[in-house]
């Protein structure tokens, strides 16, 4: 088992005729993901890589009732509409790759998803991968390998760094999720930890956090009260100064909140093993598994 996506996942690519959408559709197909259709308003009836293109999500859903995941490559100013459309059509896992979506728009479609019982992953995420089964994202697949470790991260390339360390050390992954680098994202550490706790084929979870916000502190409270499986955590940005955005819109230490030290303390107190370097993930896992 994995979480969120597996062999049975049927994927819709929103913005499939764009450069990024097209490129990553090919890459997902190469990996063996079941991409079944795409949308681009005004281009309904065309074909991309042998896949039908529809004007709307609802039309795609009528043709392919088993569609249960979508991935969005639509430009920032139209991406919120695309996400809302997917949630409205009842798609269960909506992955928003697009960066720079206005935060007011994000709040609205994330709220809608919460009401409808869909998961929004992102925005500004590399996506999700259940190695060997399904890739719903833009990550380089070769650093991931099937296994029993869950991976949750706020950062893209850092996920690849840790996944590569895990793979090198012989620890495969059940599912790896990029939560996204924006101040507001749909799926949280808490949501993902809950799913990994319930997954019989995940033995431990690696949590990759960074400065800014309070998602790691909330995860710590949740771990203490609800998680029985081991959690290993790495927090990026220990050396980041206050008041400066470190690339991700969400990565900023403002006032007393959001510091790496605060997050590390909270996670340690909750019983998580906090590592100093991504490379230390191997040793930490060897000790507990």
């Amino acid at each position: 088992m994995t979480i969120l996506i597996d062999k049975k996942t049927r994927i819709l690519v929103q913005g499939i005729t764009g450069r990024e959408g097209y490129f990553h559709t090919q890459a997902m197909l190469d990996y063996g993901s079941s991409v079944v259709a795409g949308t681009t308003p005004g281009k309904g009836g065309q074909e991309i890589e042998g896949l039908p293109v529809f004007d709307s999500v609802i039309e795609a859903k009528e043709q392919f009732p088993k569609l249960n995941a979508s991935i969005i490559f639509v430009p920032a100013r139209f991406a919120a509409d695309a996400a809302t459309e997917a949630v409205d059509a009842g798609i269960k896992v909506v992955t928003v790759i697009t960066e720079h979506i206005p935060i007011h728009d994000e709040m609205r479609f994330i709220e809608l998803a919460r009401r409808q019982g869909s998961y929004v992953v992102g925005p500004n995420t590399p996506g999700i991968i259940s190695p060997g089964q399904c890739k719903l994202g833009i990550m380089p697949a070769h650093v991931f390998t099937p296994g029993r470790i869950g991976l949750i991260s706020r950062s893209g390339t850092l996920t690849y760094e840790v996944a590569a360390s895990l793979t090198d050390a012989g620890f495969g992954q059940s599912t790896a999720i990029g939560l996204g680098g924006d101040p507001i994202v749909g799926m949280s550490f808490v949501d993902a930890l809950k799913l990994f706790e319930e997954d019989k084929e995940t033995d431990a979870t690696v949590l990759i956090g960074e400065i800014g916000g309070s998602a790691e502190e909330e995860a710590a409270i949740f771990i203490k009260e609800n998680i029985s499986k081991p959690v290993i955590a790495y927090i990026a940005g220990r050396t980041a100064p206050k008041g400066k955005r470190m690339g991700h819109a969400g990565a900023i230490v403002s006032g007393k909140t959001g510091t790496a030290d605060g997050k590390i303390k909270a996670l340690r107190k909750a019983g998580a093993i906090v590592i100093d370097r991504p490379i230390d993930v191997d040793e930490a896992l060897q000790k507990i598994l």
Partner: protein
Amino acid sequence: MRLFEYEAKEAFHQVGLPLPPSGLATTAEEAAKIAKELGGPVVIKAQVLAGGRGKAGGIKFADTPNEAKSVAEELLQMTIHEHAVHRVLVEQRLEIQQEIYLGITIDRSQRRPVAICSAMGGVDIEQVAEAHPEKITRFWVDPIFGLRDFEARNIAKNAGFEGKAMIQVADMLLRLWQVFIRNDAELTEINPLIVTTKGEYIAADARLNIDDNSLFRHKTLAERVSSGISEQTELEQRAQKAGMTYVELEGNIGIIGNGAGLVMATMDAVKYYGGAPANFLDVGGGATAERMSQALDIVLSHPDVEAVFINILGGITRCDEIAQGIVDAQPKLPRKVPIVIRMIGTREKEGAAILEAANIPFLDSMDTAAKRVVNLVSEVDSA
């Protein structure tokens, strides 16, 4: 993006929030003229994009146009928290009976706007929030419905306002909500909202921070950004124009990487081995050779940099593009310093071939590379 007080007040004016009569001046003479027109005592406020302005001496009082002139002259020569004062706002002074705080911001963990109200407004609102959290009323607004009239009334009531005052405060809050929505605000505040001795409600100060990602919907503000009124340093602006994120730090090891999280982790690794990062530079996803070459130039334009650590984990980014960028940059670099490269991922072999042909060494472990660059700098320092 943070707006100046006078810009925020323009947005307030558009939704009918009552403001003190005022005028904007760029010279002492203009300030005197505005004071004369307003008649009576005025308050003169430096227009800077920095907090703690009042405590830094950026707000002064004047009773006559002549006094206004000398006060404005003084303010226009000031620098507040490294921001030079180019404009002052001259406003009629108000007779204060009470100061109220009203604010709307975004709560990241709830993923909702939060409206905040306190009957104890003013410069010490943060201390009030710490010492008397019960004096601050918070309400999380449904982002789909928006703030509704009855909710605004409930907020005002919970903050201790009764009868007409409750209706007035609720009305101000609903107008502030309009400011928040119309301007795609990350934060908007009236602090203080003043109740005058005559019982009028007036927004004495205004704060409005706009979500940069929404600027395509706010053309006039977008122009301000492109005209270079900004809180960033020159190198930071140059990087932004090239599609990269650069943040200056205090150390001497230049850092370049792809992806914000990886760059932060790279800084942390350098620090772990006793080094000090001079900057944060994220070349972004899918960087071209051209962009990589610019990144090196920007990092080396900082005079403190004694060595550079390039850490690339290719996903969308291709190692051959990065390698080509490094090679292309060599003859044009402002200075010669040691460069340590760690490069793995997409098109790694092609990238390796390019670097090898140019006799540039590279590593495959971030940890080894961090150790190497820190050692190189300590050798330079001890030489």
